[in-house]
């Protein structure tokens, strides 16, 4: 059973981020796995799950999300090996600190050595990141500038847009994958959705052909430099 826990969708789900859960569940089901999506509300404890999804949010909700996760079992479960895929604000709050309105250094969960400061401008637009030789296409909308520790591997190199800092995007540690490509980035990048799914399930997956492959080809054609 694949359990996909969507963390605080009412706080961290600004940009269609719930779509990533639907994509993972469907791609698992179509390969014969059982899959369920659990919405973790702000009053709920964080349950055991195969994968946790963290989405984007506005400043206040992001701060509240970090506070709630800090006192929950989330970090312990992640250290026990539960896998996380995070985007946007979700990416930021996994790090050591981030900035939100009125707070230049708000304490993050510290699960990865990454510091987010205020960027000089807000970054709004298409994002293309080279991940394992393939283009990851998406859309970013954030004001952060994220600096990774030397020991942290970025998800990929930025080809269009800003990502962390104009050079690289996101990060990839054994238990945490993250990107600034918000919302249903897994819908636009079926190959990457399968990478996330394979990592969560801990096994190789059979190829799966869907209409999303055509969408991906079209977006790459429209965006790739």
């Amino acid at each position, binding site marked *: 059973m694949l359990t996909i826990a969507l963390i605080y969708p*009412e706080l961290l789900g600004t*940009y269609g981020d719930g779509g990533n859960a639907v994509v993972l569940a469907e791609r698992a089901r179509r390969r014969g796995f059982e899959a369920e999506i659990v919405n973790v*509300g702000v*009053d709920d404890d964080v349950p055991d799950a195969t994968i946790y999804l963290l989405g984007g949010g*506005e400043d206040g909700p992001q701060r509240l999300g970090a506070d709630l996760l800090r006192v929950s079992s989330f970090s312990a479960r992640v250290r026990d090996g539960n896998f996380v895929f995070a985007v946007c604000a979700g990416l930021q709050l996994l790090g050591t600190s981030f900035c939100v309105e009125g707070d230049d250094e708000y304490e993050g969960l510290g699960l990865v050595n990454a510091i987010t400061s205020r960027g000089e401008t807000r970054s*709004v*637009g298409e994002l293309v990141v080279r991940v394992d030789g393939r283009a990851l296409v998406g859309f970013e909308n954030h004001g952060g500038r994220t600096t990774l520790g030397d020991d942290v591997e970025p998800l990929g190199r930025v080809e269009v847009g800003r990502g962390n800092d104009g050079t690289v995007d996101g990060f990839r540690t054994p238990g945490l994958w993250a990107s600034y490509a918000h919302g*249903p980035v897994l819908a636009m990048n079926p190959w990457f959705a399968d990478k996330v799914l394979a990592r969560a399930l801990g096994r190789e997956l059979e190829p799966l052909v869907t209409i999303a492959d055509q969408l991906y080809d079209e977006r790459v054609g429209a965006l790739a430099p």
Partner: protein
Amino acid sequence: MPREISLRDDVAKGAVRTVNLLSRLASRGSGTVIGGRVGLAIAPNLLADLARSRDVVLVSGTNGKTTTTAMIAAGWGVAVATNSTGSNMPEGHVAALVASKSRSVVLEVDESWLGDVARATRPRVIALLNLSRDQLDRANEVRQLAERWRALLADLSEVTVVANANDPLVVHAAELAESVAWCDVPTPWTTDAVSCPRCTKPLHFQDNSWWSDCGFSKPTDLVATFDDHLHVRGTSLAIDLQLPGAFNEANAAMALTALSYLGVDLNEALKRVNAITSVAGRFSLRLWRGHQLRLLLAKNPAGFSSMLLTLKSDGADVWVAINARVADGRDPSWLYDVPFELLRGHRVYCFGDRRLDLATRLDYANVDYVLVSDESSLPASSEVINVLANYTAFQEWRTRTKAC
């Protein structure tokens, strides 16, 4: 008024008319925005001067602005100056006020322009419908917008704010206003206000009420309420609209409440509002290549959800057209915030620049879809087909179809 300024205004007003006429003759745009822009460039105070000594009503919110504005204009029962073409920024307002000298004015206002327009036009009534996500790529985060409205309304005098009591963001925005008329209207979409605008803690929704642990809660001094009738300040009204959907009943309730503050006879106003069959081409029946189409504008998650809820579960084909041009917002992520699962049992034909994004969304929702690349091969149908389209896609379908 100093003579110099009024002369400048006259020149500016003349310019608005001339440029609009030329623009229409050259058939560029609807000929309202360009003239207004020229006028404002010549006389920056033009909007304030044009609105002086008139009874102004402003209508703002994410969804329902155009319809509510049309309902107020129709319900008023007098000649009304209004921006019925949907140009809802100051250049459109200037154009509307130049085009008609009527004392009665109702203007639809883009959410982010409400402050400027309200300070310039000194309205008697402002109707605030709802606030939710729209065009996220413009970074107009809804909570910030609510804060800006709040600062504006705390400051503005001699205005009655007709506000939706079921939308926590609207309540946060309106609660400091000098005079507020709270309306208890159907508001199914509250996903953008699940965290309290005051303290960011979760809001609780139950039994047509809502509250936060900090004490912020739904207002209880309601001026307009619904059961089988709409009750506005002691008058009971039987709403019986030609327009579809609960969201249009909510729009009508807001419009009639606004009109009650302008001294309009509500029973007469109701007859005129009930008789409306189409607003700026929306909901109207159109013809295209032998197909009978009903065009429905749906441009953000809240609007789209309301529109999906009006469709009967009869399995009829539905056409959906999605673009992601500048006016739509370049980011179609919002498709994943729309409960397309409601369309299971229907076959959905996917149109527009971003039909592949739509088809992918429908595929993951397990909805039967057809990607339309060749429009000449669409099956013939004798039934009226509902066409849901977002902003620029809707304009395209307006242009390509003919009135029935």
